[in-house]
């Protein structure tokens, strides 16, 4: 049959419609859109609140830290919050919390951080808040606390956003879209290497501003669970994330995401074999009988797809295997990877699976596919990505979402037999 004008018109219309719909779903693939969004970020001027973020540490069902930056010191820094939207009018909010910790960012030109630690929050509850610094207000935003029941929920994981600022903005916009579309997504765990040089305030400032892009159009904020990477040395990490892990520990802590899900965040950039290992052993020993899903996250991989293994392999892997950790998230390599289940340095169906390895903007590397633990059913490839991990009583659903929303990898993990 010869193509007629009608056929061609139909074909053209379908192609156009497909193009429009693809563009609607992935507007961040358009450079102009990204630039427009980036231009619209809040300005760091005077005591105008900017660079807002919500931080989760140990008890996200009941606590959260709302943090922000002002260009000058300012005097009064408050978070107003409530259980429903109050359209950003401070006097209408039932609760308010004066900032607990304020200070000048190390090496900055006078910019200050502010951390308001909200406590006694209700689990699985959406809190609407507005930040006020000396009468200047942020837009109204909201976040949802972690559940205290066994409901389904998802967390986005990803690492390595230190270079590739445009791609970083794109991934942030992807996260915002995923978070907006899916109310089950409640947090974002960053695997470290936010910036190139941890002591460079300018780089952090840019990262913080771009982090605003993860806030959905509705104002939904994804609380961040921060991990320290090898490029994040220096005091700014603690100033930005309010010292996760507390002063007594070096940024390692466990987050109870629900009564059945725990995430242990480790610091691969400090002593791995001593106090941190003892703490990890005690933590896993205490959590394993209580939770269905036990996860660990740190920056430098034990089972890398590109580089050589970090100290985690020697000191932490035996503990992951002893306490049957369900999934370990790593970063640093700038690839997408999922290992085969590993136990005693061998493929073993009862072993631990390691996923990663960083794609929040950094240029991607070519993975070394000859490594035994990356062979099928393992996987290694490349691409800017986030990992969406969904927890249900029956399974962990793991999928790697690329910038164009295509799925680079997916897997299901079942609860371990007791």
């Amino acid at each position, binding site marked *: 049959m010869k193509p007629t004008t009608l056929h061609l018109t139909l074909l053209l219309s379908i192609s156009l419609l497909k193009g429009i719909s693809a563009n609607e779903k992935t507007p961040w693939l358009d450079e102009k859109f990204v630039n427009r969004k980036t231009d619209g970020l809040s300005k760091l001027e005077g005591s105008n609140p900017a660079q807002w973020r919500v931080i989760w540490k140990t008890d996200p069902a009941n606590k959260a830290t709302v943090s922000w930056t002002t260009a000058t010191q300012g005097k009064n820094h408050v978070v107003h919050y409530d259980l429903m939207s109050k359209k950003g009018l401070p006097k209408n909010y039932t609760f308010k919390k004066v900032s607990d910790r304020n200070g000048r960012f190390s090496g900055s030109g006078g910019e200050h951080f502010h951390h308001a630690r909200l406590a006694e929050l209700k689990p699985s509850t959406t809190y609407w808040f507005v930040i006020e610094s000396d009468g200047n207000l942020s837009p109204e935003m909201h976040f949802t606390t972690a559940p205290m029941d066994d409901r389904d929920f998802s967390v986005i994981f990803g690492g390595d956003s230190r*270079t*590739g600022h445009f791609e970083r903005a794109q991934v942030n916009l992807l996260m915002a879209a995923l978070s907006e579309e899916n109310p089950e997504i409640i947090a974002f765990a960053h695997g470290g290497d936010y910036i190139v*040089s*941890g*002591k*460079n305030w300018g780089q952090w400032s840019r990262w913080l501003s771009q982090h605003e892009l993860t806030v959905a159009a509705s104002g939904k904020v994804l609380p961040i669970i921060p991990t320290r990477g*090898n*490029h*994040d*040395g*220096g005091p700014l990490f603690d100033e930005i994330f309010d010292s996760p892990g507390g002063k007594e520990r070096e940024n390692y802590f466990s987050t109870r995401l629900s009564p059945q899900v725990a995430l242990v965040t480790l610091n691969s*950039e*400090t*002593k*791995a*074999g*001593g*106090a941190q*290992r*003892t*703490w*990890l*052993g005690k933590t896993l020993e205490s959590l394993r009988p209580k939770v269905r899903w036990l996860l660990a996250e740190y920056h430098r991989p034990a089972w*890398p797809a*590109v*580089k*050589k*293994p970090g*100290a985690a*392999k*020697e*000191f932490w892997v*035996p*503990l992951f295997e002893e306490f049957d950790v369900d999934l370990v998230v790593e970063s640093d390599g*700038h690839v997408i990877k999922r290992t085969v289940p590993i136990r005693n340095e061998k493929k073993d169906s009862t072993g631990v699976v390691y996923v990663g390895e960083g794609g929040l903007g*950094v*240029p*991607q*590397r*070519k993975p070394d596919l000859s490594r035994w633990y990356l062979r099928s059913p393992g996987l290694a490839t*490349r691409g800017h990505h986030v990992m969406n991990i969904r927890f249900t009583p029956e399974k962990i659903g793991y999928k790697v979402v690329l910038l164009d929303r295509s799925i680079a990898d997916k897997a299901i993990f079942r609860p371990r037999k007791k």
Partner: protein
Amino acid sequence: MNSFENHFSYARLAWGLRWIISLQCFGYAASLAVPSHLNSWLLPLQGDAFAGSVDTTIALILWTAGCVLPFLGRASLPVSQTKWSCPVVRCDAALLCFVAGWAFLNAVLSWQMNIEDVFHATDPFGHAVRFVAPVVLLAYFTGTGSRRKLEWFLRLAVASTFIGHGLAAYWLKPGFVDLIVGTLDTFLGSDWRLAEEREKMAIILLPWIGRMDFLLAFLILLPTKYRKTVALWMAIWGFVTATSRLTAFGIERWPDLIIRAANWGIPLLLWWEMRAKIKSSKNL
């Protein structure tokens, strides 16, 4: 010292340097199986394909250098016989320049790519002996400077390496704590419940190790009668600390041992030289 003894001593030192540098080349080449600091620097600028091909090219040159350097024995000839018109000599010199350049660049980039980490700031000092050794060998067979001066440079480089490592130990470098804890695990058995205690032990030990390194660095530069013993001590300690990469993290870290061949090899060579000199003077 007569001319035969002088020639013999000259050849011995050059031969020792060649083997040490050759070992070091294998270490550097093997470590390029994973991205180098240069690769990390190039990645955002030029992309993975270019950065990867640079690593591969450098690894190939280093493997070649490791294989051929011990056999490019022109340097064992007296200086007067070194013929620059000979392609072998040129090739030898080019490879030594490359090895020295790579070791130096690696030390600087290790510091610069981890600029926020104070411990990496010691790398250009800590790696000094690795890039000075090829330069000294090159200077030997080009006849640049007296042997006395060149030995002095080697001592200075060894001292710098010990000062660099001493500083990192004194400041309790986390990696060094893990080396001690991992080694204790290997010899005493791994037990996560004891790990915290072992870390405390390492934290007590490290400042003393740092002080010892400073003392050794100081003594190797002084014209004392104990210098021979100091050199031997440095060689043994350098070997122990290089081997700790394996005792803490397993045999797969073998490149970390031989990349540090100069750390213990050069003090050993200096000790050998001093011993030979003493023997020779006794014979006279």
